[in-house]
């Protein structure tokens, strides 16, 4: 397999976005900034087609992994850049391409009239390119390159409306938290290089498999696994480093939809899928991943139920669902995790765009639960799509979400213990917060009845079409289960490697089959979901004032939820600690003490100089006395010898 045999679709996958960005930046932006989205939408179409073609090729066993050129290296050691089109990669790539293109379409009309329109579209598409690169990288360094590019694009997009103080703060917090995660990733890569001397995925799988089989796994393998999990937690907003995601809602809605729901945040899970052979080789790690996933999912589901801002609710919901994916991965169900990742991409993007439409209806970037209500009639289409996506999220039977969520709950029940309990809690919790959002936004009292003046109007077709397609996708995606199953299974094993010396294939850890509809899990999952929905109905429609009354009665409780059980305050305290340390080192230690001491030494010499020069009062007798004393001194020295 050499470069010539690589399908043109793979080349085009990169060529289209790069040329679109270059044309957009150097040709269209100077001439007519409002048309920047045209080359970009064209490139989205091309990318979607190529992704689906590659999907079809991989389905027929055509996956490949090829090194193109030596990026950087000295003597024998070196890092090569190349392309890896295999099952998991193409599956997620297709979802990203489809969802991404629809959101690009939505963004083209949503951002119309914004002064920074062309800047937004260009950076938005740069992110799209980075995501493609990330999914098709064939070694850790290349993955790290696109991983950081995605982080940088998210910084620029969260901080797009930079005149808002909160947006600037959120952008910086997002980038620095990602940077802390990337600290772990970089250290992991360094340790991999130290232990294995190579960074290529497939070769690593072989080396790890052989090493663990022979019983002498390298000394740093647990550390590598832990650091990779740390990096995934930062990017996929898991427990220790998730706090940046809710604030990332400051960015425009398309950004929140594409990056912070469907694609970027899943990069962490994808990294764990790519390094699963390394992590699975270390006994304790998969359970750790499952534990983190479960804990994050449960806690953020609870907090989501208490948020007032629509987009924040969805942000915590995303954190919760990412926890679910981690849980599935931790329990060994690699393909279930990928399947849920794809399904989640559709319904969460749809929900975000609906929230965007609601906000758009009242001409604000986002809406607060108190400002909306009873808009079933006012925003009919948005209401329909919102309901479809919510049902899919809650995992109600015929809708797409059910199939992936059911498989996870089934795996959790099978594992039993805490995981089973958390599976149930999540089913109930997610149903509760999504239906609470549904009722508060579209049912119940309208804002006029609550003394607010709001006259919402339905969004234009440019905004509704993409949402509709996404909602449709969210509903029917369940049918794609067997496709994902074969993709992941095929990708893992039957991989002809284009690198000499490693021709044979190998089967990798983790079960790749997705169980069908298990009756037991169906009943339990649906039961909990129904319970959650009922609770939501009771607390919003029946006892209308509940939502704000408990906040008045127990403000302490609200503070606990606001600070995510105290974790946010801990993080702020840490951030302030680091900056005060920097202030101390920079101003006091370096400028005042050390620099002062050095400049002081200059003054010491001058003082000595003036001391002596004052002594020289120029009187003749004194001079002669000193001369005599000098001569006597020499005499003494001479005689002493």
């Amino acid at each position, binding site marked *: 397999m050499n470069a010539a045999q690589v399908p043109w679709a793979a080349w085009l996958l990169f060529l289209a976005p790069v040329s679109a960005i270059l044309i957009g930046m150097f040709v269209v932006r100077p001439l007519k900034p409002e048309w920047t989205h045209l080359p970009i939408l064209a490139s989205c179409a091309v990318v979607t087609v190529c992704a689906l073609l590659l999907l079809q090729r991989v389905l027929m066993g055509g996956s490949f992994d090829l090194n193109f050129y030596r990026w950087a290296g000295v003597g024998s050691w070196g890092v090569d850049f190349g392309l890896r089109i295999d099952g998991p990669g193409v599956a997620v790539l297709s979802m990203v391409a489809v969802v991404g293109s629809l959101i690009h379409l939505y963004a083209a009309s949503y951002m119309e009239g914004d002064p920074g329109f062309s800047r937004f579209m260009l950076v938005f598409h740069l992110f799209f390119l980075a995501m493609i690169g990330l999914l098709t990288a064939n070694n850790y360094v290349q993955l790290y390159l696109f991983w950081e590019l995605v982080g940088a694009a998210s910084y620029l997009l969260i901080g797009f409306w930079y005149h808002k103080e909160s947006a600037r703060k959120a952008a910086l917090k997002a*980038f620095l938290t990602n940077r802390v995660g990337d600290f772990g990733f*970089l250290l992991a890569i360094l340790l991999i*290089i130290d232990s294995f001397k190579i960074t290529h995925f497939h070769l690593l799988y072989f080396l790890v498999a052989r090493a663990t089989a022979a019983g002498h796994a390298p000394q740093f393998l647990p550390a590598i696994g832990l650091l990779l999990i740390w990096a995934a937690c930062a990017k996929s907003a898991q427990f220790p480093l998730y706090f940046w995601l809710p604030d990332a809602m400051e960015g425009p809605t398309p950004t929140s939809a594409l990056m912070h729901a469907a694609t970027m945040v899943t990069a962490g899970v994808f990294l764990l899928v790519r390094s699963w052979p390394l992590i699975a080789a270390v006994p304790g790690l998969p359970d750790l991943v499952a534990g983190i996933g479960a804990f994050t999912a449960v806690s953020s589901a609870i907090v989501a139920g208490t948020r007032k801002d629509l987009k924040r609710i969805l942000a915590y919901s995303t954190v919760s669902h990412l926890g679910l994916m981690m849980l599935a991965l931790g329990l060994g169900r690699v393909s279930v995790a990928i399947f849920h990742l794809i399904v989640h991409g559709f319904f969460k993007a749809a929900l975000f765009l609906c929230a965007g439409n609601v906000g758009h209806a009242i001409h604000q970037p986002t809406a607060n639960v108190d400002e909306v209500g009873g808009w079933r009639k006012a925003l009919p289409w948005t209401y329909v799509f919102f309901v479809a996506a919510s049902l899919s999220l809650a995992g109600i039977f015929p809708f797409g979400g059910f199939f992936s969520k059911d498989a996870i709950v089934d795996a959790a029940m099978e594992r039993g213990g805490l995981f089973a309990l958390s599976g149930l809690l999540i089913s109930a919790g997610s149903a509760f917060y999504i239906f609470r959002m549904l009722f508060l936004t579209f049912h119940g009292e309208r804002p006029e009845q609550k003394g607010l003046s709001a006259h919402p109007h339905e969004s234009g077709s440019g905004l509704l079409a993409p949402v509709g397609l996404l909602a449709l996708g969210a509903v029917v995606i369940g049918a794609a289960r067997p496709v994902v199953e074969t993709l992941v299974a095929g990708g893992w094993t039957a991989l002809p490697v284009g690198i000499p010396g490693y021709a044979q294939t190998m089967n990798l850890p983790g079960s790749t089959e997705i169980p069908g509809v298990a009756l037991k899990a169906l009943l339990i999952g649906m039961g909990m979901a129904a319970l959650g929905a009922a609770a939501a109905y009771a607390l919003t429609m029946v006892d209308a004032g509940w939502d704000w009354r408990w906040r008045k009665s127990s403000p302490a409780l609200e503070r606990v939820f606001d600070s995510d059980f105290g974790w946010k305050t801990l993080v702020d305290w840490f951030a302030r600690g680091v900056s005060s340390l*920097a202030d101390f080192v920079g101003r006091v230690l370096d400028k005042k003490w050390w620099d002062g001491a050095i400049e002081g030494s200059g003054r010491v010499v001058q003082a000595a100089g003036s001391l002596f020069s004052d002594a020289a009062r120029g009187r003749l007798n004194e001079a002669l006395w000193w001369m005599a004393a000098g001569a006597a001194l020499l005499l003494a020295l001479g005689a002493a010898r």
Partner: protein
Amino acid sequence: MSLLTSLWAVPALGAAACALSGRAARWTALVFSLAALGLSMAALRPILVSHGAGLLVEGGASGLFGISYSLSADGLSLALVALTAFLNLICAFASWELEVPAGYWAAFQALAAAVNGVFLARDLFLFYVFWEASLIPMFFIIGLWGSDNRRKAALKFFLFTFTGSIFMLLALLAVVIAHQRATGVWTWSLPELTGTDLGAGAPWILLALMAGFGVKVPMVPLHTWLPDAHTEAPAAGSVMLAGVMLKMGVYGIIRVALPLVPGAAAAWMPILALLAGVNAVYGALCAMAQTDLKRLIAYSSIAHLGFCLIGVFSGTAQGLAGAALLMINHGVTTGALFLLVGFLYERAHRRGLSDFGALATRAPRMAFFFGFSILASIGLPGLNGFVGEFMCLSGAAQSPILFGGLPFYALIGAIGVTLAAAYALPAFQSVFWAAEGPNSVSPKVFDLGGRESAILWTLCALMLWIGLAPQPWLATLAPSLQGLVR
């Protein structure tokens, strides 16, 4: 006049020509800078063709006291000479519209001549003469055309470096004397001096050499001249100071200090590598505390050079190649940043972070270039900053020098990489994104002109090229560092 001699003689002649050409000094400077760049490319070509393996040697006529006029050049030194010529050309363009006397242009040419001399010297006496001679033009550049308290900065710069290098001179003398005592021959030529048995004095000689080079790099305890010198120097002065003069220190360590006292260097390597790690983190922490934009970039240079030293002291081929490439990258990236701050200062005569605000709307092009250079500086992969740092850190990870069994410096280096974003992005935000403060000078700032954008486009293109395809650069630099691999 043979090729290597012309590499430093042409800029020297240029200095004289500029001094005499009065009003047309900038044109003379441009012509001589172009000539110097062409010559360095011509010299670099055979090395490129033979994948960095070649070594050009020239001269050798021995004078008195064992001193001989001999030059030598390999991949590393010619790359640094090319960088000097390139940055000198960039500075010529950047300060094209400044109303400055002919002396300004002459000083830059003289600086280029002296620095090239350092990179090409094969004879330690010649090395030292060029090393100190480079102080004089920079002293005048900072002192005459710097900003408000330039006088103190110029004097501090000169005294600091002179103190370091006079102890380096004593060390060099000690080596020459030890060599004469062993072989009875007075010689200052570096190849012959390497490997002399220095006996018990070796650690002291290493300490004195590291003092001399450490001030220039700068290594942390000896760094306090850098923020003042960079802040007060004119834009082009800071570019040359950061882009090229700091590399003289690292080049000195690679070419003179480590080969001359290999035994002591090996024994002290863990301490030196730890100091390099401290450099990286200390520089980043100090940068976070700065309120002056130029001072912040100066401290970021200290952090970057910390990585470079981690690579050098790792003793592995990747680390050394990474260090060499980082020297080139740092010259390009920090050069771009200093040019931008210089353009800002030309427009508003202010450098404080809180003096500006919302410049992204007033000067979008400046915002783009500044953002691009900041991302390259904090080591965003895909741009040149990351390549150097990654190679240095991977070298450190594979380094046989362990600190308690762990590649400890890789950890410190990674912390340094993370802190980079913590000082660079808040600075970018407070200048370009934050709202204008009450006494902000943003209204005075107008966007970059054609000339300025052209310069920055070339620099950004170079950053992207090295970021995506660094291998040809590494191939030229790596062979010349084989000697130090352990």
